[in-house]
């Protein structure tokens, strides 16, 4: 039976179990709900949980391990000649067998051994399917009858059900931690493999980046230099341009909106500015590559400058536009959190509005603003699509915003999209870059959150 069908059967059985459990509890109490420890619905839920959850777990484990176990059994029955081939060829043969089973195109010729193995595979799969179906349904029915029998007047069904739900809640909230662990482990493991072929010092301090590794030893242009410095220089250059655009505009917009603007202007301008934050980055990338970059190039040429068509300026400028709402809404929050008494004090001394803002509110809000700017910077560093579409691929170590530079994220994307072996240093380099990116943005975030939190404590 198909897995989805099996799941529906289980759901149906659980629904039946719920109904029967409810009825059973009423029968036990002779129809007097008062006598029962819990409401009838809890007895129903109790039975349904016993019916559904263990069976679902069996189903889950079975589907996870099924194909590996069957594959291993099939491999062990293959003729020795095939079994003793090297690992790569063996996986190829296994793939062929699987393709044959599912009716796909097979890479090599189908000989009798492979055909036999495929038949064997198919047979095993059928057996496994039947076994699973029978097992799951039997377990579901057995456990629900068991729990039905255990229903007594003093049975604490509610406590049991609530405990199960609590466990579910705890599992769900642990997913956040699992995700972080997953991220760290996945980038770390591949990075360690990468650092076995390229030393850490060469990676962190190397001045040259050209990740083409040789397939053959005598190949031309297979220098394979993995120095991350030019990538970081490029990332910093583009992020710096972005911050140059975003910080003045975002900050001044926040100041105007919170200190000068009337409620009507605020109610229209703020959401409009925030639209900028909701636009997908791929749209910004398209805008940068097809509208801003040619414009900058043409203007530059008119002024007699040589501008690369994938200049850092175009990518940085558009990234700045994207970040404006982050800076403005974060600064807006901080400025609004400055107590009114500080403003009143300054006005009382005869200061004008702008003097109050510049000399009183801005210094008071500065730590929060710095925190916001750091958060925005970490976004700029991790931003991918704009730079993939509008920045260059060649790693130039330059500070000239009119030249093309490349960034960490661009390199991750170019290294990983496309067909290559998973264990070549070229692919693994992407994970090492990911690790560096993760560490840098994490550090920026921790510092920023720390600054913001410390500042908040002052006024509360």
């Amino acid at each position, binding site marked *: 039976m198909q897995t989805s069908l099996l799941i529906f059967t289980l759901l149906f059985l659980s629904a039946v179990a719920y109904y029967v459990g409810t009825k059973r509890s009423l029968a036990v109490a002779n129809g007097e709900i008062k006598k029962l420890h819990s409401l009838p619905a809890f007895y129903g839920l109790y039975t349904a949980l016993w019916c559904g959850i263990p069976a679902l777990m069996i189903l889950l484990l079975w589907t996870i391990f099924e194909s590996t176990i069957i594959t291993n059994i099939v491999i062990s029955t293959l003729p020795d000649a095939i079994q003793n081939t090297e690992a790569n060829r063996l996986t190829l043969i296994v793939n062929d067998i699987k393709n044959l089973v599912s009716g796909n195109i097979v890479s090599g010729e189908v000989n009798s051994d492979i055909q036999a193995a495929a038949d064997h595979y198919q047979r095993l799969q059928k057996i496994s399917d039947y076994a699973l179906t029978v097992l799951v349904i039997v377990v579901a029915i057995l456990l629900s009858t068991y729990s039905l029998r255990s229903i007594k007047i003093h049975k604490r069904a509610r406590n049991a059900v609530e405990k199960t739900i609590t466990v579910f809640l705890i599992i769900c909230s642990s997913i956040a931690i699992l995700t972080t662990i997953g991220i760290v482990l996945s980038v770390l493991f591949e990075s360690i493999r990468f650092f076995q072929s390229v030393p850490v010092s060469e990676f962190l301090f190397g001045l040259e980046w050209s990740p083409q590794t040789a397939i053959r030893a005598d190949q031309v242009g297979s220098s394979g230099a993995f120095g991350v410095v030019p990538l970081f220089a490029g990332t910093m250059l583009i992020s710096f341009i972005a911050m140059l655009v975003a910080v003045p505009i975002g900050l001044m917009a926040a100041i105007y909106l919170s200190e000068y603007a009337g409620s009507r202007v605020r109610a229209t301008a703020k959401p409009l500015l925030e639209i900028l934050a909701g636009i*997908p980055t791929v749209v910004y990338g*398209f805008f940068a590559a097809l509208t801003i970059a040619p414009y900058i190039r043409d203007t530059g040429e008119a002024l007699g400058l040589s501008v690369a068509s994938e200049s850092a300026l175009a990518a940085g400028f558009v990234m700045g536009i994207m970040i404006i709402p982050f800076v403005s809404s974060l600064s807006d929050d901080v400025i609004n959190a400055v107590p009114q008494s500080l403003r009143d004090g300054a006005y009382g001394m005869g200061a004008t509005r702008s003097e109050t803002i510049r000399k009183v509110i801005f210094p008071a809000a500065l730590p929060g603003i710095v925190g916001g700017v750091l958060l925005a910077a970490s976004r700029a560093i991790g931003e991918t699509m704009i730079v993939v579409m509008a920045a260059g691929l060649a790693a130039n170590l330059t500070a000239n915003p009119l030249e093309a530079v490349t960034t960490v994220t661009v390199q991750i994307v170019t290294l990983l999209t496309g067909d290559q072996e998973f264990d070549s240093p070229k692919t693994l380099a992407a994970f090492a870059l990911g690790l560096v990116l993760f560490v840098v943005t994490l550090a920026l975030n921790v510092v920023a959150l720390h600054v913001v939190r410390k500042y908040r404590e002052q006024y509360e």
Partner: protein
Amino acid sequence: MNSNKNTMDMVKSGLAKRRRAEKRFRIYGLTAISLGLLFLVLLFSSIISKGYSAFLQTYIQLEIKIDEQLIDPNGTRLEETLSSANYAGLIKATLRSTFPEVKKRRAKRALYRLVSNGGSFILRDMVMENPELIGTTQTLWIPADDDVDMLMKGHIDRHAEEDNRRIKNNQIAWIDKFITENKIEKRFNTTFFTAGDSRDPELSGIWGAAVGSILTLVVTLLLSFPIGVATAVYLEEFAPKNRWTDLIEVNINNLAAVPSIVFGLLGLAVFINFFSLPRSAPLIGGLVLTLMTLPTIIIASRAALKSVPMSIREAALGVGASKMQTIFYHVLPLAMPGMLTGTIIGMAQALGETAPLLMIGMVAFIVDIPGSIFDPSTVLPVQIFLWADSPERAFVERTSAAIMVLLGFLIIMNALAVVLRKRFERRW
């Protein structure tokens, strides 16, 4: 007295300067806001002006004689014969008879390039559906090639030097003949909304990517909403204050700021390499986007739970409800609008996300429309990325049009969130 007067003078003498500074400062603020809004207008107008023309497509009217000799010489009408017959040959023959003066091979090839490759498929589907058409002459509107389309829309300058344009002089002459005979016209581009991707711009559409997006979002929603709400409920209502819950909170805040591409690396390493789930499938896209949107949903749901006043909980506990009953029957329903708003905003983010999906192989060139969450597929933003990379001029307007569709979806989702917030917002 004297010194006092002096101070007043000093204040007064500086007053004009200070007022000017005040005015300047105000103008800076206004300029900043107008610049921000200007960028917004610029972005939208540049995309709309580039993309609106993609909703029309040039068609050429041809009178095609469905020659039995060419497609079914034995008269068997077998499905096999009919499906593999040379329909392109029919169209070519029609073009040759329309312009009998074309004799040279190169000129003939240029002539054939006027209409799309897709013409033969249209013809095939028509004949397969109704084999009685064989032997008759049918008047059909066949999509023009993308270069012809660009010429008709004015994106190719017909006065440019011949070597610099993709449409040559003889082709322009033929097109002009079609124009004078009213046999070429722009019609609503239904292909764009019903087809999958294609190498030929005139045959490409966004439906495949849209279905991929929908499947991916369904997976994301089904996973992230229950998990997000459960996490928020646990952290807000049950969690004891200890190291473990602190760790969870720090984690959630940090995950919200991790670059999206890192989630892609996670998906590649864990879901594809470790669990060997199918590449390019909406299932994996959904899993990765779930992990990405969870922090957004959790943070919004916690805010919603916090806004439900204590008195509600106390009243429920007071009449004898258990803690779990209090939360599920009283607190959660009141917090639900806020949670839904957060979820919709998270879904909108997920819909626009591209980078992590590139990592898990959803960039493949996929023509078929995905049928399930295990089929290889692509999503709207990735389709935009792929088209933006294509060299054909006609893909520029299609990219812009796809962006317009994507932005349309996002605006609808965000408007829904705003309406939900306005409608159910409660001040306690």
